């Protein structure tokens, strides 16, 4: 029996739904991938399949994972390992708000910045916990595509790597991970099952992007409108203040006068009436 590598033992920081834990010592995504690929043997206790798909359109999609199991056996607890690349993100705050309404249970390897574009963001590992009840279980994880770099075509393909699947086992596991997406959580043994399902191609989402051939017309239109509006408004302001030039400004010394009778003239309107400091109108 293969013991879990010490490298993959995990110290769990406080975890609540959608909040990050420190998975740094679990290894990077590539290591986990290599581990999964190196796992040998089939899992004779279970027959089933897993399907991955994307629902929705635009920048906001749902990653749909459908687990199907035939017959009875062990392995009712699963982890879907999602490699969150720089091309998309999972909003952990959104996940925590969905928790009360049957949202997915997941933990992340780090804080996921929801505002960055593709060039500035990094990648993360997200573990989605699934408890299988019955012969089929479906879990939806909302994910959001980041703004991609501009190109020559109206759309660009955002690749969502096919998730890995891990099954909880009492022994013979190859990786130690939290048993539950809660805080604190003991560690359990997990391993990748060998399921009789064809390998899934990566999931692809087509997203609108800015087109490089729009640059010149956009520059022209934006500059024309913004600077044109600026000049128009300055002309308006100048026009407004120039009307002031046709009226009189009157200053009155009220030191020796209690009250004042003012008759504005129609021929020379008063636009400003001033008094000395000790008096108020």
């Amino acid at each position: 029996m293969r013991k879990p590598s010490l490298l993959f033992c995990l110290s769990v920081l406080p975890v609540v739904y959608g909040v990050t834990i420190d998975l740094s010592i679990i290894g990077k995504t590539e290591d986990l991938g290599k581990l999964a690929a190196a796992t040998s043997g089939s899992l004779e206790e279970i027959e089933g399949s897993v399907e991955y798909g994307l629902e929705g359109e635009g920048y906001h999609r749902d990653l749909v994972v459908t687990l199907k199991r035939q017959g009875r056996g062990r392995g009712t607890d699963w982890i879907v390992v999602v490699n969150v690349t720089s091309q998309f993100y999972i909003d952990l705050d959104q996940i925590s708000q969905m928790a009360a309404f049957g949202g997915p249970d997941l933990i992340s390897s780090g804080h996921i910045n929801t505002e960055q574009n593709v060039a500035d963001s990094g990648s993360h590992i997200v573990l989605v916990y699934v408890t299988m009840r019955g012969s089929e279980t479906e879990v939806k994880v909302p994910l959001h595509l980041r703004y991609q770099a501009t190109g020559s075509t109206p759309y660009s393909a955002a690749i969502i790597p096919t998730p890995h699947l891990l099954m909880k086992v009492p022994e013979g596991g190859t990786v130690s991970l939290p048993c539950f997406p809660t805080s604190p959580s003991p560690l359990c043994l997990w391993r990748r099952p060998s399921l009789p399902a064809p390998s899934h191609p990566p999931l692809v989402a087509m997203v609108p992007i800015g087109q490089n051939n729009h640059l010149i017309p956009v520059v022209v239109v934006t500059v024309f409108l913004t600077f044109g509006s600026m000049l128009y408004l300055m002309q308006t302001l100048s026009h407004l203040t120039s009307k002031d030039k046709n009226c009189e400004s009157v200053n009155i010394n009220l030191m020796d006068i209690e009250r004042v009778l003012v008759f504005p003239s129609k021929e020379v309107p008063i636009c400003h009436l001033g008094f000395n400091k000790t008096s108020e109108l």
Partner: protein
Amino acid sequence: MFLRAVAAFRERITLRVLLLVSLVFRLALLLYGEWQDSRFAVKFTDIDYHVFSDASRHVIHGESPFLRATYRYTPLLAFMLVPNHLLFFSFGKVLFILCDLLVGLIINEILRLKGVKRHSRLLSVSVWLLNPLTATVSARGNAESFLAVLVLLSLLCLLRGRVTLSAVTYGAAVHVKIFPAIYSLPILLYLQDRDNPGAGSSCHKRLFKPSSSVVSLLLKRTRGFPNVQQLRYVVVSSAVFFSLTGIFYLLYGSEFVHEAYLYHVTRRDIKHNFSPYFYLLYLIQGTSLSLPVGLLAFLPQVGLLLAAAISLHRDIVFCCFVQTFVFVTFNKVCTSQYFLWYLCLLPLLLPFSNMGLRQWTAITTLWFTGQGVWLFLAYCLEFKGYNTLHSYCGWLDFSSSSSMSLLSPESSPLTPSHLSHPHKTHPHLSHPHSSVEMTANVKNTT
């Protein structure tokens, strides 16, 4: 009979009734929000409210509020919302609703000071208090009404001649959000004119050619700068701003300065938003054009802010409105909440507008239609995946033209009548008792 009934109904509407109705309206929205939040995944509560609350939770634990990702506000807000966790979660919403009502009171007071009659005042106040947009914003937990209170209070104190108090609230407003700093120049020029009323008068203007340069106009306006009131304003507002900022800097370090202030200055959002620059910034991101274009984009904004300050500071309320409108419209990022920054000043201009109901309806329809079209394109882009980016140009033109219609000289609904028609009543001549003619007993002629 009907007209008598309408007149009688109008008489019954008082400020107290308006406040009561708007309070009930907002509380009803708040309760509806609680119901929706408990039953649906799509929340009524603004996501920012959760950000404020999470930050205040960190404050309770003695931690930095900036541990909460995307918290980019003054820590003062997090401290204010501590009762969210000690009393009840919607405490902050109630606080913002009360700020909304306070805004209505201040608007009423400013208009009363300007000599506006009761009926017109109530009509203007109701534009804010009974506006479903403003009511929804505060009921959802957005903090813009708190800033509106500080800005309007500053203007009210200024108009009353309470310079020190105005400076205190102004310094606090700039600390809460950096954008009120744009009012500093017109306020200083306004204080100069109060001290030396003839400094900006047309008598002096006649000495200059009509095509005076901005520099000569500025020099003329700043003759006698600084006076005592200006100095007092600068010192007091700076003291308040730096005190608040200094306290939080000592508590939270440079992270506070970066998140609360620098982030907003350097922010460049390439995602779809109301800014006319968003698509341009998206196309040039990561290229050598990014920096020079980003700097160039400041020119219209800064130019118009200066021009408005120099030209309109004598009517400080109108000047602040124009400056805020320009700032929001020409900013590199513009989201829906930015509109509230000038919407809170709009009711102050309505009694002085020279427009009728038909024109108002047309302008309002134009504004909302522009926003609706823009949002529809955003929906098609974000949620349906259609590439509507290329059609932004057409709608940019539409949106900008609808915005500019607010400030056109002839048809502007908001140009105070004393500016568009100098022969009409001038607010400077108005008095709380609304009488220009006063009998005189001259003791010594001058």
